[in-house]
């Protein structure tokens, strides 16, 4: 088919063509970037914590009237309370394992600090979250140990968060080991946690920090497990339920703990939560926003499709006479159909060309404002193909109507 007559015709409809080209360009720029934003969120929501989340429960509570001091008597009293709770939970029928655990991935409560290779804290520094817990914590979380060993019972310390005891041994996540010891020989080495020495006895494959906030995103898998049962007026535990018994274990835990101390504070909202509840709570905003963005994109594509259909219908109506003449002069129905399809293809191509520039500009703007990564180029060809398809879909009905114009029209004066 020759393009010349199509281009000549388009020149006579500069305004209409420009408007559609603009629409397609904007649609392309917005949809590409919005889908990229959605993808970023999905990636964020889908990333694994490193723990086996199914069957994992967090218990968080505080004792009413518990001592608040750091003196040895108070600490021992608090520790006794905690040990009683741990033993009670361990004895429950639907509970497989229990660990003292101040923090939990995604949950939000976090202690963090800096790791260095010397006590002066000079040179290479890695920021990390500290998971305080006992010898069961790693196995109850279900985090995979890739080197070394778990803590031994006799290595577990207990003190308040203000305690000055130094953890002699730690288990670190692999990203920390790799960063501090690029040659892969981290096991057995000494690191300094805020200036205090500790020996690496174990390395876990992956353990996300407890925070999903922006300020922690640069070190989101840097976690250290500390052999410390943290004492305080509140204490938290990680509980592993028997397979399929999560709900039952949660109920048993509540009843058993309240039976020991009916005055303890363990509200329904955050007292006992399954890991899946914690996950859905923390990522609700991300999922909601992905859904909203997705809907807006869908509406945008529909509007653009409708716009193309509307404009082409108008052109078909306007050119009935010319179509009739062409048909009378021997053009087949399929020629008319092809004419409008090719015309649409040309217009959409112009739109895509402009859309590439706009998409790039919008991506730059988003990068600047929200510290987002650059839009990967693969989005652009996919977007282009999608818009070509949408264009062809939108033009089909009016083009078929055009093809149905009878040659007799040519003989009538309107």
């Amino acid at each position, binding site marked *: 088919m020759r393009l010349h007559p199509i281009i000549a015709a388009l020149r006579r409809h500069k305004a209409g063509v420009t408007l559609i080209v603009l629409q397609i360009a904007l649609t392309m720029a917005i949809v590409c970037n919005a889908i990229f934003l959605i993808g970023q969120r999905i990636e964020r929501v889908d990333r694994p914590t490193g723990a086996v989340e199914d069957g994992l429960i967090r218990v968080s509570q505080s004792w009413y009237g518990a001592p608040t001091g750091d003196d040895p008597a108070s600490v021992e009293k608090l520790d006794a309370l905690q040990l009683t709770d741990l033993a009670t939970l361990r004895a429950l029928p639907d509970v497989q394992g229990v660990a003292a655990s101040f923090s939990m991935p995604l949950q939000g409560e976090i202690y963090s*600090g800096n790791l260095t290779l010397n006590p002066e804290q000079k040179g290479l520094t890695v920021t990390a979250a500290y998971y305080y817990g006992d010898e069961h914590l790693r196995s109850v979380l279900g985090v995979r140990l890739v080197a070394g060993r778990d803590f031994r019972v006799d290595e577990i310390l207990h003190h308040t968060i203000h305690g000055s005891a130094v953890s002699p041994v730690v288990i670190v996540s692999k990203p920390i080991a790799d960063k501090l010891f690029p040659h892969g020989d981290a096991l057995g080495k000494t690191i300094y946690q805020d200036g205090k020495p500790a020996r690496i006895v174990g390395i876990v494959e992956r353990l996300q920090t407890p925070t999903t906030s922006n300020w922690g995103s640069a070190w989101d898998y840097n976690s250290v497990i500390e052999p410390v049962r943290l004492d305080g007026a509140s204490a938290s535990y990680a509980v592993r339920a028997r397979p399929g018994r999560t709900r039952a274990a949660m109920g048993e835990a509540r009843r058993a703990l309240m039976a020991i101390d009916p005055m303890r504070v363990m509200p329904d909202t955050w007292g006992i939560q399954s890991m899946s509840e914690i996950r859905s709570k923390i990522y609700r905003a991300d999922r909601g*926003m992905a859904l909203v963005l997705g809907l807006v994109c869908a509406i945008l594509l529909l509007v653009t499709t*409708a716009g193309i259909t509307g404009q082409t219908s108008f052109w078909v109506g306007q050119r009935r006479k010319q179509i009739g003449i062409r048909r009378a002069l021997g053009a087949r129905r399929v020629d008319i159909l092809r004419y409008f399809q090719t015309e649409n293809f040309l217009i959409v191509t112009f739109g895509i060309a402009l859309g590439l520039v706009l998409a790039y500009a919008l991506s730059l703007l988003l990068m600047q404002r929200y510290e987002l990564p650059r839009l990967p180029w693969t989005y652009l060809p996919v977007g282009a193909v999608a818009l070509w398809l949408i264009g062809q879909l939108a033009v089909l009905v009016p083009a078929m109507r055009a093809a149905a114009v009878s040659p007799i029209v040519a003989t009538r004066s309107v």
Partner: protein
Amino acid sequence: MFGYYLYLAFRSLRRSSGLTALMMLVIGFGVAASMTTYAVFRGVSGDPIPWKSSQLFVPQIDAWGPEPSSGPGEHGGMHEPPDALTYADATALMHDHRATRQSAIYAVAPTVLPAKPGSSPVPVFGFGVSSEFFPMLDVPFQFGSGWSAADDAEGSPAIVISASLNQRVFGGDNSVGRNIDLDGKDYRVIGVMKPWNPQPMFFDVVDTGGFGGDGPEIFVPLQSAIGSGMQSAGAVNCPKGVQPPPGADGLQKSNCVWLAYMAELDDAAAVQRYRRYLDNYAREQQQIGRFTWAPNNRLRDVPAFLDYEHVVPDDAQQSLMVALGLLLVCLINTVSLLLAKFLRRSGEIGVRRALGASRRRIYAQFLTEAAAVGIGGGVLGLLLTSIGVLGVNLVLPPRLAHLAHIDPVLLLMTVLVAIIASVLAGLYPTFRAARVQPAWQLKAN
């Protein structure tokens, strides 16, 4: 004349009902998407204390020096001071008392034991503040008032409680003068607030993250809270390589930041004076050797500080941007549809012009028609916006979703935006319609 144009518009729209419906749908969806995301954005970016936010300031003092840190207070790039104060700095600022009113603020989460026999302890959330906090932020009271400056100085066990806590513990009675058990200690109720839950919780965004919760339930004098060992329930951020030192006493002597601060400054001159005061203070600290760096302070008013802390979630801005993009595409779409519609009637325009209608008349007629499309789109937009805002409540976390609500302003805006958008969209097509040459049209026909 306007009535006649409306009649013409109505007839014309009915003649091509498919195209009309399409235009109204396009405008309706575009406006509804924008207004729904705007409702969320408005909810989270609203000024929590509009009548006073430009007089309330958050001082920041660099107690850490140029060493980078990693806590929530970090803001990449420029070296910014921490976004909370150390105990030493907060106490010094309170003591010097250079603002009209001021208060150091820290989050506490003690437990209340209702006096009723058999009741279980209630975890509550609140703040340690000074007496000036209440008049400074115009906290509304149902019974009583805030405590006195003397209570601040003496560290009295005074307490201000929320209406909901008063309901829970005292059955909603005037409880002023009665005692309430907080972590096993008796506090005397001085005031009961009316329901008060500003969002974002601008007076302590560092500890609260800005949004969420049912509002503060208690306020206690800062000194008595610290004195009775109430630990900070919010963020404690320390300079690199420092962990929170042992005991409350250790924390007070440390360079860790954990106190929010707010100062009321009435005019630009007072702000200037306060800036100078902060710089002088930092210089003094430099002289006594506590700071080994030049003064590096900030004094931001509430809107600037909320912006600095990125309190408005990026999500809300991004979805508003995308929705505005959608509205723009809808607008262009309407331009092209109206253009098609108007130009199809070139013959009619030719006749009207030949019969003496001026260009202005043509403008009036066709803009009326565009506005009629806008009204239709607006009505549809109202419906879709309502559905949208309700839908957003289903998918967003409650702490954000509660802030997005339908009110008369939003509804009015929906219709106005729809009408303005379609009249704007109608401008170019109308311009083209008015340029139709009557003679040429009549001849062609």
